[in-house]
């Protein structure tokens, strides 16, 4: 009796301890980045290009570049992903083909991002001749976030009550009109939430854009989708590993990290707020 009590107590302690440890680690991480990076954040840092071998100036081209790449990735993945999800949830019949496609999507989600980078390099940069560009980078990042978007969209579509579909079909409305006019609009909040979460992923990845879009340094902003751009994650990588004055740029590295983390964090918070609002207004 006593031993059992002791065991239970120990177990509880372990579980609580792990949770606390993780919470501490996360807090520690944010505090560390904030303390180290806070000092360099200023208006100039956000709005100016790097100067003097990147030891001075700001990171504006990288912020803009990341913005373009992320929006581009979304423009690629959102339509494709939503359409695929509509097929999977509304049209595909359970069977071997469907299972095969599902497994394929899950595998795609597990592929390391550097592999996407190489895939993008081979297909978009070289084969299609887009060069290292916003276009090639967006396509590559788009493929990277495709599984997330498909998953989120399928879930959102499946969450639309069957009774809505029945009501519409029972009125003599065709299946595709039911899908586009009833099912998809009602799934939209869920689809958007999932997509916003994947924006965070696209904004933060380095490997997929390393060979397909990111420039070591450009002071000018891109003029077309065939231009290279600087990007936040790659900029951090460059400053920390490839520069000639790594120690001198240390504060700028942390500043850039802070901006990137803040950006991703902000995007996720928006997603969470949107989702909780959508949950409140939905009443089925």
């Amino acid at each position, binding site marked *: 009796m006593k031993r059992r009590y002791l065991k239970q107590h120990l177990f509880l302690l372990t579980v609580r301890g792990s949770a606390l440890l993780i919470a501490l680690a996360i807090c520690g991480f944010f505090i560390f980045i904030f303390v180290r990076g806070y000092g360099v954040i200023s208006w100039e840092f956000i709005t100016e290009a790097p100067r003097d071998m990147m030891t001075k100036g700001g990171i504006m081209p990288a912020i803009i570049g990341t913005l373009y790449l992320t929006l581009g990735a979304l423009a690629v993945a959102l339509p494709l992903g939503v359409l695929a999800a509509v097929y999977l949830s509304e049209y595909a*019949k*359970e069977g071997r083909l469907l299972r095969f496609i599902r497994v394929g999507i899950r595998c795609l989600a597990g592929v390391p991002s550097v592999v996407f980078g190489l895939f993008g390099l081979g297909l978009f940069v070289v084969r299609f001749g887009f060069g290292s560009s916003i276009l090639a980078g967006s396509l590559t990042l788009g493929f990277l976030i495709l599984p997330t978007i498909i998953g989120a969209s399928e879930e959102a579509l499946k969450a639309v*009550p069957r*009774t*809505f579909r*029945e*009501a*519409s*079909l*029972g*009125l*003599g*409305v*065709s299946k595709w*009109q039911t899908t586009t*006019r*009833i099912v998809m609009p*009602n799934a939209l909040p869920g689809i958007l939430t999932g997509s916003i979460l994947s924006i965070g992923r696209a904004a933060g990845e380095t490997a997929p854009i390393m060979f397909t879009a990111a420039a070591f340094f450009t002071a000018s902003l891109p003029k077309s989708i065939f231009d290279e751009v600087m990007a936040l994650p790659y900029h951090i990588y460059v400053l920390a590993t490839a520069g000639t004055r790594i120690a001198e740029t240390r504060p700028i590295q942390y500043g850039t990290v802070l901006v990137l983390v803040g950006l991703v964090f902000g995007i996720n918070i928006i997603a969470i707020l949107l989702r909780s609002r959508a949950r409140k207004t*939905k*009443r*089925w």
Partner: protein
Amino acid sequence: MKESNHIITTENVNFYYGDFKALQDITMGFEKNRVTALIGPSGCGKSTLLRLLNRMNDLIDGTRVEGKVLFEGADIYDPRVDPVDIRRRIGMVFQKPNPFPKSIFKNVAYGPRVNGVCRKRDLDALVEKSLLQASLWNEVKDILDRSAMTLSGGQQQRLCIARALAMKPDVLLMDEPTSALDPVSTAKIEELIEELKKDYTIIIVTHNMQQAARVSDCTGFFYLGRVIEYNRTDLLFTTPEKKQTEDYITGRFG
């Protein structure tokens, strides 16, 4: 029943969910501009038969129909027939009110809009007429922009009826339309059915025998996927021919 003014007839219909035979040898006619009630214990196939009449069962995988279902003399299961056209002419009201999470106006206007009615004036008129027919107009005429989800259950069900009526169907199928409603709302819907039968043919599934007796002209009693007895409502309830029917309507089983 005598061959008369039947808008829908079924001939030796069997229906299967996979291997399970849910309906067996159903042969019956549904009279135009009359209310026909389908009664019987749970699971006897009333909903299945109802959904068979406008091909809603097509939506379930692995179902199969044998025999003929004639609507105005034409087989609705003919391969050349588009089920969408059938459902336009044979509307449906479900057990649980299922309005769309849209405004009251948009709920009623949805069907006509999809079918190409887009002039604001036409839509306004159609929505008003449908809501009037469903005896809901007076309650909602000032709140047409409000979400349908804010209405009470009974109002939602009448909205669903209005939504079906806006498609100008010939037949209205109702699957236990009042089983989720309180007695006052139920009474309103029953009154409404009385009104509607002037213009529509109504086939209603009900759990409630008093309801069948009150609203219907003909009643079919079902048991284990078969029609046991089908007759004029007054006759079926006063002088049932079959022992099983009598047992059921007197509450000895069911």
